[in-house]
């Protein structure tokens, strides 16, 4: 437990000092919003129905950037070597990294969401708790498998390029349900319907979190 916390704190400390991935993630998220705003010009009258999809595309893209950066940084000076030699189950590294990735992503998501309120002219108040829950579970599902796949990707010849290629097909159930849930909150307000997508995302997170935790040991190598 202490070690998970140590890894998380270390990532946080480096990030606070350099803001490398944070800036990149945030900027990319906002760029995606802007691009989609132009791409969907023809839907101007019904743009609100596109917002959930645009938001999650922005989250997924910036999240991929963050995940990539996270393990690439470990590779830089052979730091991964140091981590691999610690006397603990390597699942600990997985949990620490997943925690860090989730926190970074949630912070970026919050800011990107605020920008989207402005760009798409939305007003939310009562919806905020529901959205927070959806963002949280969706992000956890994303990082649960994203952390494992990013550890795989950085150790290939393709390095960071590979991550989106292998991550997005796997993550599809989370994206579909997260978009749908966000849509329910923003556009239909039929909160009973939220149960199903939230359940699917939770199941996804638990199943893949467990598998990743157990198998992380095997994929991690310097």
């Amino acid at each position: 437990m202490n070690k998970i916390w140590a890894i998380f704190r270390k990532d946080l400390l480096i990030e606070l000092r350099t803001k490398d991935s944070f800036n990149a993630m945030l900027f990319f998220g906002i760029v995606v919003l802007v691009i989609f705003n132009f791409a969907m010009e023809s839907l101007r009258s019904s743009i609100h129905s596109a917002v959930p999809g645009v938001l999650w595309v922005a989250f997924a893209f910036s999240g991929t950037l963050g995940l990539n950066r996270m393990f690439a940084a470990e590779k830089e000076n052979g730091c991964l070597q140091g981590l691999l030699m610690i006397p603990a189950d390597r699942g600990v590294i997985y949990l620490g990294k997943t925690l860090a990735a989730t926190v970074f992503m949630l912070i970026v998501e919050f800011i990107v969401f605020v920008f989207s309120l402005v760009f798409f002219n939305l007003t939310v108040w009562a919806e905020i708790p529901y959205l927070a829950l959806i963002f949280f579970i969706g992000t956890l599902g994303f990082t649960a498998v994203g952390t494992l796949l990013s550890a795989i990707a950085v150790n290939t010849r393709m390095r960071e390029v590979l991550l989106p290629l292998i991550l997005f097909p796997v993550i599809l159930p989370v994206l579909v349900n997260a978009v749908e849930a966000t849509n329910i909150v923003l556009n239909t307000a039929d909160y009973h319907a939220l149960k199903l997508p939230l359940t699917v995302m939770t199941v996804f997170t638990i199943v893949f979190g467990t598998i990743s935790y157990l198998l992380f040991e095997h994929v991690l190598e310097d």
Partner: protein
Amino acid sequence: MSESSRSRMDAVLGVVLLLGMMLALYMAFIEAPREQTMGDLQRIFYFHVPAGITGITAFAINFVASLMFVIRKNRWWDNLALSAAEIGVMFLVMVLVTGPIWAKPAWFVWWTWSPRLTLSLVLCLLYVSYLLIRKYIEDPERKAMVSAVFGIIAFMDAPLVWFSIRWWRDIHPSLTSESGGLAPEMRPAFFTCMAVFQVLMIYLLRRRFYLESLSNELELIEREAGTAR
């Protein structure tokens, strides 16, 4: 299994397969009745659906082999997993090619985001990812282990993908619906094709597996000879 009995088995299987394919063509194009609304076009169904199911069978084999590799760490299982993944992708590509051929005349669209077609597409992407990962890892032990982990994840992802898109389709209904029932007269043709596709998969799997073990052997010989250095 000895070399000679292996190749005898392949030869027998090959002959059975050839006869089976001829039978399947007969059943699908001549024996089976003409569908009332879609006409002869519907006959593509006898190839489209079995290809999909056979592809998924291959992925199931990949899943079991991946799991066994993680437990046993034996190269044999890795070879099986790789062979199954490649062949599964091939069958799924058949599904994705026959899908639009069928959809365009029947429903006047190239692509319908129907749950089954979407699942086929996502499965295809998942296992192309699997093959990509293999391509870009050099260390053979690592390659086998990492791809086994990915194989497990990919297959466990499939039910969730299926469930998500089914549910998603429910709220965004499309123009087309997938007919569930199959007229009793069509069943013999369908099940014949189904069986022949499965035999085809097993035959290809054996050949591909054999090829992979040959390439392992070649690697070994080259290593012994030290030609690479």
